[in-house]
């Protein structure tokens, strides 16, 4: 028990899990109905799951996928890619462009379109990566270029239009696959999670990324090429970006280069921070970031459920996020640890006289 407690408090996951727990408890007291999941029939006539929990998981999927790439970049480059949302708009535009130019939409066509958008997103991400890894420009500055230019590039890809695309296949990617009651974005997110766990399990990506992020000199002298490790992080991020872009396009059924995942990069960075990865690089925690993404979404859904006007949601969110970030700050951590230690010492002091008397 003691060991488990020690392990738990030592882990980077404490804060995100604790925050998630708080939101859940808050909702338990506020309205237990919040957790109800019901099966409803959607407009295609299939039974699907519905409820706040489902919409949290569904809504967080794009941010969660983006946060995987962001976590790796943060860890090894000691900075963030702020262009992920703009690149997602590019990837989404490419996706739509390929679909529209191919006539009938079939599963192979969708796959090809997805691969194209992956390729484009990876290339753009590599552009960022080269600026950061080879030219050693600070990530924030390097990615500022695509942050501001990305949506303009997306604008050109579809000739300035914001075409809608509707097709049962796309609807099932953005919504539900007929017969499966779980929203497809959740499934895709889980697939990504499994994939990245496998990558971390069967490669040394985790170790290399952290070593590069903590001490590049050591990495170099131990045969790790820091440039390659950083580029790899950007490549992985590119795939995440394309996936998030395509899911969002399928979900809303059109590509709007101006609004697609607008401001998502800040949510993604926040998810990484809440998840326990230092934005200064070094040790990372992928699952923390994913939990972080869900915390943000849970907050949003809770606020909507409380009938907070949508214009005010951001302000409420900001307050709660400040609280989470303060709780997870080193200052609070140390204070809490000290209080625990003092309590433990008191206990020992009280025990000793008893032993001496007996």
């Amino acid at each position, binding site marked *: 028990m003691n060991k488990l407690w020690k392990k738990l408090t030592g882990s980077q996951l404490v804060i995100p899990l604790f925050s998630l727990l708080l939101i859940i408890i808050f909702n338990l007291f506020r309205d237990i109905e919040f957790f109800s999941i019901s099966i409803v029939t959607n407009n295609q006539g299939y039974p699907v799951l519905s409820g706040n929990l489902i919409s949290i998981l569904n809504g967080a999927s794009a941010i969660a996928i983006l946060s995987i790439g962001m976590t790796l970049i943060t860890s090894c480059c000691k900075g963030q890619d702020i262009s992920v949302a703009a690149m997602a708009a590019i990837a989404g535009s490419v996706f739509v462009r390929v679909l529209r130019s191919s006539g009938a939409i079939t599963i192979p066509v969708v796959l090809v379109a997805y691969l194209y958008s992956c390729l484009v997103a990876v290339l753009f991400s590599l552009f960022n990566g080269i600026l950061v890894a080879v030219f050693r420009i600070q990530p924030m500055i390097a990615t500022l270029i695509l942050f501001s230019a990305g949506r303009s590039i997306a604008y050109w890809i579809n000739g300035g239009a914001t075409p809608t695309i509707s097709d049962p296949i796309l609807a099932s990617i953005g919504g539900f696959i007929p017969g499966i009651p779980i929203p497809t974005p959740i499934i895709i997110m889980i697939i990504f999670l499994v994939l990245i766990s496998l990558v971390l399990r069967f490669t040394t990506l985790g170790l290399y990324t952290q070593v590069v992020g903590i001490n590049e*000199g050591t990495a170099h002298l131990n045969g790790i090429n820091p440039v390659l490790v950083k580029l790899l992080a950007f490549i992985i991020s590119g795939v995440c970006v394309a996936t998030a872009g395509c899911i969002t396009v399928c979900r809303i059924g059109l590509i709007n280069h101006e609004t697609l995942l607008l401001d998502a990069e800040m949510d993604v960075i926040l998810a990484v921070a809440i998840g326990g990865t230092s934005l200064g690089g070094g040790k990372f925690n992928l699952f923390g970031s994913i939990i972080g993404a869900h915390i943000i979404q849970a907050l949003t859904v809770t606020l909507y459920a409380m009938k907070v006007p949508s214009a005010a949601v951001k302000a409420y969110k900001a307050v709660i996020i400040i609280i989470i970030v303060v709780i997870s700050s080193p200052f609070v951590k140390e204070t809490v640890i000290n209080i625990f230690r003092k309590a433990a010492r008191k206990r020992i002091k009280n025990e000793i006289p008893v032993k001496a008397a007996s």
Partner: protein
Amino acid sequence: MICMRNDIILSMRNISKTFPGVHALQNVDFTLRKGEIHALMGENGAGKSTLIKVLTGVYPKDSGQVLLNINGSLKEINVRSPQEAQNLGISTVYQEITLCPNLTVAENMFIGRGNYRFVNWRTMKKRTTEILEKLNIPARATQQLGTCSIAVQQMVAIARAVDMECKVLILDEPTSSLDEQEVEKLFSLMRELKARGVGIIFITHFLEQMYEISDRVTVLRNGELVGEYEVRDLPRVQLISKMMGKELEDVSAIEKRKLSDEETGLTPVYEAEGLSSTNCPNAFNFRIARGEVNGFTGLLGSGRSESVRAIFAADKITGGKIRVNGKPAKIRKPKDAMKLGIGYLPEDRKQDGIVEDLSVRENIILALQVLKGFFRPFSRAEAEEFADKYIKLLGIKTASMDTPIKSLSGGNQQKAILARWLLTNPQYLILDEPTRGIDVGTKVEIQKLILKLAEEGVSVTFISSEIQEMLRTCSRLIVMRDRKVVGELKGEEMTQDNIMHMIAGEAVHNE
């Protein structure tokens, strides 16, 4: 020992401090008198640094008293931050330089001092120039600190502390990156301060330096006080045995390995012809036989580190022919060298050695993992087995193998990096200052280890600032001056005198 109460400036009584799993200090007493240089000695993890950090408010103490002489009487103080310590007249110069390399020398001298709201740049510059001149420090006030050599940076740090009118000056391993002349300069500075009545706490691993300058010594071992002694009453052997806590195995018991002619005649393990790198522009030749221990010697900045870095391809290689076991080899980057069984322990442990936030386990397996490949990570169980084996083998003191390496003492960090390379089972190991900043006991251990490795057929190139260490372990020395190899000594020719003459070079003969 009779001492007047009123010449005590600092008295620490019954200080205890516990870290998770480690008793860093247990009931330690320490007394510092006015105008004395008081050495603090002990092995790795003996608690020297912890005691200092408690005194300066970096760590809160668990129990005990700190008394400081304020206006003639001892008063209990409770220092909560280094800033507070500074205000009370306790200044520290740490082993690792803690100034800001991207600010100027003048800014570094005055940063965080006083409570002025406006900065008078001109007076600041003038005052700094004065101090630098007075203390004979080769730096300009407007120069960026980072562009000075480590030695000069260290001296600026000391100058800064001196200028702050301190009563107690703590020097934590100040000499470990200085060459002999610089050490002399520092010592004359210390004597001057002593004459002014400053109490100096001097932490060092260099016995010679301790004997040269200190009046009194306090010895710690495993977080406990061994005792306080007058330096002139304490023979070296006794001091060492007090520090190590066991009858000292005579250092001279280290028996140098002599290569048989047969072995020397064999194809060298590593051979370089005209090797040069961006940091080591003067091409040099080098060879090492199987089981040989050789070394590069020379003053700080003579190019000894740069040479071994070139062997490992740590810097960009600009030319040279290399043969490993007689076969031509291409070593363009560290990984090439690692694949050929070469290991390199860098001079700067903090910059190039440890990965601070990662665990001891991860730090130990790093090099072997890289060699094994990106797609073949070690399982947790394998990694733990390796780490466990080497933690035991080298006696690395750590709470657990999952402890971040940054919370270990310097010597134990060094052992962990040594473990990293031993784990790769190298045929040729380059150790650049493996004994720097660590205690005598571990130094002897490392020297013994080097000779044991050589016995097993590993070739070792060893660099140390302590010439005695090199004379004890190496069978051949390559002497360097001004980034050039100026000669080679072996066998009987290897004496301290000869090395000095060679380093001094033609200058001596010409006179």
